[in-house]
């Protein structure tokens, strides 16, 4: 299931791209798995096929998928370094927001770090973190 909100300020293609990226990074797809065709995916999600095509193009550029002419789009093998790099990039926007908000509220770096540690402790038992050495 993909959660797409057409009315969001975030364009649809960005939403879908981020969700697909997250799932690939989280290991929900195996290397070599085929993604739905543009046509089928568009029918499934009820959005313009051009949007799907755009997302596949971006993912290919970033190295997440590869398109084989006439066959389809497949999840490509991710080297561990690439994966870590990609994950770091993925969390970038959330961090931007956190830091901006902190500055806005006048909270310093040390305070935020303390708050973050608390949060990790809170969340830890429930999350299954992907192995950082994968």
């Amino acid at each position, binding site marked *: 299931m993909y959660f797409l909100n*057409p*009315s*969001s*300020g*975030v*364009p*649809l*293609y*960005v939403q879908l791209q981020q969700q697909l990226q997250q799932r690939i990074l989280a290991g929900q797809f195996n290397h070599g798995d085929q993604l739905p065709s543009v*046509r089928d995916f*568009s*029918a499934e999600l*009820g*959005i*313009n*096929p*051009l*949007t799907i095509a*755009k997302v596949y193009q971006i993912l290919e550029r970033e190295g997440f998928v590869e398109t084989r002419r006439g066959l389809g789009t497949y999840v490509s093998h991710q080297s561990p370094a690439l994966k870590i790099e990609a994950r770091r990039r993925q969390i970038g926007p959330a961090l931007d927001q956190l830091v901006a908000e902190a500055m*806005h509220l006048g909270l310093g770096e040390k305070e935020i770090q303390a708050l973050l540690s608390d949060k990790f402790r809170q969340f830890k038992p429930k999350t299954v973190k992907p192995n950082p050495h994968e």
Partner: protein
Amino acid sequence: MNDAPIIVQNVTRSFEGPPVVKDLSFAVKPGSIYGFLGRNGSGKTTTLRMLAGLIKPHAGEVRIMGNDPFTIGANERQWLGYMSEKAVIPAYIKVGSVLKLGRDLYQTWDSALAEAMLAKYDLSPRKRFMALSQGNQRLLGFIMAIAPRPKVLLLDEPAANLDVVARREILDDILELIRDCGCTVLLSTHILSDVERVADEIGILAKGNLRVSEPLDSLKDSIRQVRFFGFKNGAPNGDIPESFRTVRGKDELTLTLRTSSLTTPETLAQRWSCQQETRALSLEDIFVELSRS
């Protein structure tokens, strides 16, 4: 863009009084869905009627697949589908007879598709048009526009009078058509969430002019509402970049503007020595901001 299937070039049209559409220009690329938005009375229906060949522009020209839609005959109209804003099918005619008319007039009429759509929307062929609900009347108009598998499809408020499920269904039908035949679609609508789902380009019409005509993604990516506050040297008076809407508050300035590589909220905040808070806007927000200015 001379080979675009739908071209509107410097078109002006008035009825009694000031022009309803003034020097309007845009083109729709092949295989794309163009969402034509605007408030009531902004000129959407007039533009669509000119494209359908019902009326002529007073200045400028419109072109459908290179032809003037007002003068084209049966052969060219095989490829042009039009759905009117109103329910325009005669009252006494039976649903089955209307479909038969389509079968007789169009070489590319897809009977299977028409039958499937009748079943999907629960329209009985034996019912007379006037016995249908308003929503069903318009659905029949939609079926008549789409069943010939046109190359260019003009839809005037296709989703008006339809319930939520039917709206979703016709959007799916439109998407299916472009997937199968590379159809080019121009649809005018009030219902922005539908447009956001399927349109790749957007035109916002206000007072007969296009305020915006570009891909939806770039529109959403570039238009931001930014609140500047905490001015160290006072709020700026001049030197404000062009924006769709400007609101001055007590020691704050809110701009709805298009960001570019040169004009970002950060650079402006730096220039004015203040803080900024940015919000991305949904299409509905963008539309309201543009319509108000």
